């Protein structure tokens, strides 16, 4: 055991190095944790500016000692290859570990350990953490807005039916598979529209009429996003084709349309739809503000979708057009059979991006007085009974939006994989 060189760890004294190294790393984490949580500095005897950095120094020494190539221990080799390749990387890893130790426990405390969930009044919130009672009490409003409590089954029923119809597409027999696109783009929106018109809005079949101003919460987020997503895609596709058309009228009207909608902020568009648009309607006609808002967002997003799809169209080699033309295909056959299937596949990530942005833009409809999830939060936080709980509300909304957006993102990745072909 003579002549151990501690500056150059090697395979021969593996257990010794491993032991001392791990000890140092443990010491470093212990030092940091004690400092952080209990205000105890175990290196108080050192000068102050040194003792601040002791956890980092111990850690780097520890990582240096266990940096032994081809040790034969699988986990250690993996560690050395990935996060312990040099002193700098070791320092970065330590820094991240310290950051986690610093952030995670307080967050967990706020979210779970110090949080209150039982009870029904503000007084039940005695802990220093989050007051989930607030969310619990307001949950119904966050989901359904001002929709009358006794009528909420109508929303639940409509959503269940739409989901069931959407799910049916997956289990369709193979021989009807070619109508799937038609089913999703035409049949489903029509069904959804009638459900919303007759069931949620009511007014006939003995159902109480509920005006759109009372709709709200997460269900309104879904309604607005659903219709905007479904309609902005075909419109955007037409605009993209129009912009590349050889016919000057089609080309320049598409161009003008796209540039107009891309040039104005969404919030102005919504204002216009609420304030200016009714002025242009002939006297006596009336269009519901929810429909106006959906049209406004649809046209706005269609311009973005158009530009994304145009990117895909331009990425295709000219030979594809030549080949399709040489087989006698006209404009529509060429685009529907050859160009669009390839171009749309290329732009799935871009389309997903636009759609995510759309969902997250829906809160802006508060400017016309429609309160979806985020809008209801704004309303709830100004309620004099429940002042001071906006934090819980926004965290709740963030989590809900994150779940929606993350599932959409996963779905788009799934689609990308499904339609992947070699070129």
């Amino acid at each position: 055991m003579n002549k151990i060189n501690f500056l150059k760890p090697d395979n021969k004294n593996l257990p010794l190095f491993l032991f001392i190294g791990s000890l140092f790393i443990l010491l470093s984490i212990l030092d940091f944790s004690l400092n952080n949580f209990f205000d105890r500095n175990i290196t108080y005897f050192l000068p102050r500016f040194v003792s601040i950095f002791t956890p980092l120094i111990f850690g780097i020494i520890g990582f240096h000692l266990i940096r032994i190539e081809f040790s034969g221990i699988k986990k250690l080799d993996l560690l050395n290859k990935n996060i312990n390749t040099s002193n700098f990387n070791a320092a970065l890893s330590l820094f991240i570990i310290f950051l986690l130790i610093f952030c995670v426990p307080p967050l967990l405390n706020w979210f779970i350990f110090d949080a209150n969930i039982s009870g029904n009044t503000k007084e039940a919130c005695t802990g220093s953490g989050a007051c989930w009672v607030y969310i619990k009490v307001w949950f119904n409003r966050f989901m359904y807005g001002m929709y009358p409590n006794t009528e909420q089954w109508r929303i639940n029923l409509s959503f269940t039916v739409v989901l069931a119809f959407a799910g049916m597409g997956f289990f369709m027999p193979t021989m009807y598979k070619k109508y799937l696109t038609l089913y999703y783009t035409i049949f489903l929106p029509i069904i959804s529209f009638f459900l919303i018109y007759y069931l949620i809005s009511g007014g006939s079949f003995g159902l109480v009429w509920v005006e759109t101003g009372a709709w709200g919460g997460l269900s309104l987020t879904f309604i607005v996003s659903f219709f905007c997503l479904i309609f902005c895609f075909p419109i955007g596709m037409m605009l993209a084709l129009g912009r590349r058309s050889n016919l000057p009228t089609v080309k320049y009207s598409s161009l003008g349309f796209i540039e107009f909608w891309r040039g104005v902020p969404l919030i102005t568009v919504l204002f216009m739809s609420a304030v200016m648009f009714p002025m242009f309607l002939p006297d006596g006609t009336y269009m519901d503000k929810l429909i106006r808002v959906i049209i406004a967002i649809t046209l706005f997003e269609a311009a973005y979708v158009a530009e994304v799809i145009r990117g895909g169209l331009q990425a295709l080699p000219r030979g594809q057009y030549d080949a399709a033309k040489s087989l006698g295909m006209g404009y529509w056959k060429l685009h529907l059979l050859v160009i669009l299937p390839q171009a749309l596949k290329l732009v799935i990530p871009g389309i997903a991006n636009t759609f995510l942005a759309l969902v997250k833009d829906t809160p802006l409809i508060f400017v016309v007085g429609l309160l979806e999830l985020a809008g209801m939060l704004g309303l709830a936080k100004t309620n004099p009974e429940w002042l001071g709980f906006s934090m819980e509300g926004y965290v709740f909304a963030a989590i809900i939006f994150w779940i929606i957006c993350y599932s959409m993102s996963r779905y788009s990745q799934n689609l990308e994989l499904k339609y992947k072909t070699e070129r």
Partner: protein
Amino acid sequence: MSEKIIQMENVNKWFDDFHVLKDINLDVESKQKIVVCGPSGSGKSTLIRCINRLEEHQKGNIIVDGTELSENTKNIEKIRAEVGMVFQQFNLFPHLSILDNCTLAPIWVKKMSKKDAEELAMKQLEQVQIPDQAKKFPGQLSGGQQQRCAIARALCMQPKIMLFDEPTSALDPEMIKEVLDAMVNLAKGGMTMIVVTHEMGFAKEVADEVIFMDEGIIVEKQPTKDFFAHPKSDRTKLFLSQIL
């Protein structure tokens, strides 16, 4: 003498200021095989792309199978359905299987039933000896197989004329032969063919006439034997001395 299937009279074409085709006069008879050669940039590809109007000519007349090429889109689509074309870069549709590549146009343009189209496609794929690849996608095939599939795809439209735009230029030397074999078979079957190529062996074997182009002009047009044995112009002699 058989009928003239393609007639070109004083055809001129410009790319902006660049005069690509200068007063081209060319008649092709039914079942004739013509090879077009010449240095790059001489306008040979543009010439055959004009025949099915992938390029527009600005002056002169082109009459294909009795129909004049003009702005009339119906005429253009009709002619394109009768004129098959094979490209240098294959240009198969990568999102469709080999079989679907072949059946797409017959089903949608010629309104054939799916069953008939598939039968026809399999027959054509057998002709070019890749029936076993029918279920694969273009990306999974070698260059030679892709080009043979492209030939089969064009033949599925049962064209009267086949145009080949440097069909072997993008291929490995080893794969050139399998594509040329498919083309020789096609020629023996009596198809009218116009081939832009530098494969002089192929020209000697199947061509009735060879055309030499340079700078947008048809410099020389002779029956194959005479073209190689007694080229008239000096430019042709120079070209042949370099390529043979």
